[in-house]
């Protein structure tokens, strides 16, 4: 009988060289640092919101409606007289929660369907591929608009689920492709001959070597989801008050842009920087782990 140790000879995902290269690039490290800060901010918003002494986004003073930035309120006030800085800080959480949750849902669906299509092939592949075609048939956010329009309660969870349900097709294709290229390799054949269960082969030997392209794509997709959430919210089918989100702040701010631009500018800048960093970070990963660039 074959020695199980032999299986450890399975090709490892190309990790080391890529990481070392990445750490040396500021175009990767700066976005990575910004994302790390944003994650900490969204975990502990109260700490960061309180820096200027007015950390509660729900403490509002209508006398200061749409007021300009002053001491203690560096970003000014919104129409309700709430501190824009505190709201922007708390808004990071909505964007990041929706971005991560929706992408996690997309990746899970993509992994399950992609493995089924790529590993089992045949009829499974046909069904999954047609399902993928169908979901690719929904342009950008229109599918989400239709579904969210008929969902009664719109909150971070329902918006994430809907965006997740429409976000998986491209990733499923990626998984299917890489699973197919791995499934025919010798070490998978060796595992099969050894009589390992299919589940074990998939989880231990196929997925680890097929997962990096989809995870890299998923990183970029977090940025796309954050934009989609804010667009849906702006349109009026995304998050709704009393939720605190950049999309809501931008929607409110764009109505008063001429008189009080600060209400639109600050949440927009934070949203744009977040998306930019997530996408550049993802692109950096892609460039570092793209096998074609190693040649």
């Amino acid at each position: 009988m074959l020695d199980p140790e032999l299986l450890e000879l399975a090709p490892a995902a190309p990790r080391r060289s890529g990481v070392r290269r990445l750490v040396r690039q500021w175009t990767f490290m700066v976005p990575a640092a910004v994302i790390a800060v944003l994650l900490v901010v969204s975990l502990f918003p109260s700490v960061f919101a309180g820096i200027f002494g007015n950390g509660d986004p729900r403490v509002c003073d209508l006398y200061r409606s749409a007021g300009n930035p002053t001491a203690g309120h560096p970003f000014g006030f919104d129409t309700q007289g709430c501190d824009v800085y505190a709201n922007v800080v708390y808004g990071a959480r909505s964007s990041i929660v929706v971005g991560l949750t929706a992408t996690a849902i997309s990746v899970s669906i993509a992994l399950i369907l992609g493995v089924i299509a790529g590993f089992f092939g045949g009829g499974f592949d046909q069904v999954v591929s047609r399902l993928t075609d169908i979901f690719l048939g929904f342009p950008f956010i229109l599918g989400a608009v239709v579904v969210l329009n008929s969902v009664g309660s719109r909150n971070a969870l329902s918006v994430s689920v809907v965006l997740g349900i429409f976000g998986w097709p491209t990733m499923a294709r990626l998984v299917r492709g890489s699973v197919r290229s791995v499934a025919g390799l010798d070490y998978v054949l060796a595992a099969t001959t050894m009589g390992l269960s299919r589940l074990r082969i998939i989880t231990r030997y196929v997925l680890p070597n097929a997962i990096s392209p989809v995870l890299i794509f998923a990183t970029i997709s977090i940025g796309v989801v954050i934009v989609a959430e804010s667009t849906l919210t702006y349109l009026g089918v995304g998050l709704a008050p009393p939720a605190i989100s950049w999309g809501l702040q931008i929607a409110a701010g764009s109505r008063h842009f001429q008189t009080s631009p600060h209400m639109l500018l600050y949440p927009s800048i934070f949203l744009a920087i977040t998306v930019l960093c997530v996408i550049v970070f993802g692109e950096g990963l892609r460039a570092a782990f793209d096998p074609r660039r190693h040649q």
Partner: protein
Amino acid sequence: MGAGLGLALRIGRRVGTLAIVFLGVTFIIYIAVYALPGDPIRALAGDRPLDESIVEALRVKYNLDLPIWQQYLAYLGGLFHGDLGSDFTGRSVGSLMASRWPVTIALALTAWVMEVLVGLSIGIVQALKKGTALDHGLLALTVLASCVPVFVLGVLLQQLFGVRLGWLPVAGVRDGWPASYLLPAMVIALFGLSAVSRLMRGAMVDNLSADYVRAGRAKGFGQGRIVGVHVLRNSLIPASTYLATDLGYLLGGTVVIEGIFNLPGVGNLLFDAIRTHEGPTVVGVSTALILVFLVTSVLVDVIHVGLDPRLRRA
């Protein structure tokens, strides 16, 4: 095998896929609207409470008393007759949209042409100046432009060019094409620039180091002829594939921009319907836009295959 047969086969396969996708997409929309929790009849009534007898009558009228698959078939039958439902006042969504299509098509095409011209030019410049500050600067600008959400970009450019500088109309279509369309089209095009220019740059960089370029140089052809005739034509394929599918997205994806710039197109109808909670109109218009996207992508694909003989073999 003749090229004509290959083309016919590919078109046939594409139309077959379209039929499956069409059934799937409409079924998902149908499920989303009528089978998800939430009562379409109550939604139809808006905020006012309805009498039970009226609810019953409406249930029968909209086939809600039938099993779900029969309901779907009835809905599909309606779609084939151009019936996209009606709004709260009883006007059909189809007729509401009819007069608005020209605006949306004009906007999408203007944006698309801008994306083609500017995106390809940027990609070409980047490829020719590969590795210079100009190359990196253009990359940074296009990526940045694609990360700012369209509704932020829309409001900012509206203020800059419309209100502050007064060069272009702020909103509406009173000034007709092109003046009223330039600004909104620019916002839409800015978003797509990064993808187009990146594809063009990549393909051109690859092609510039290809053997046929060296052969051309060896034969003594000038840089202008090599780049302008051979490299350019061979490099257009990846970007044109993207641009082809993008046209379909543009036709369906102008919702936010039409709303911001108050252009009376189909997207604006959807924008308003969402804000006024006109549920049936939202569904009808979205369905129409999704179907237009599907049909456009197939049409564009067929044209694309017609133009590029190599795709026929696939």
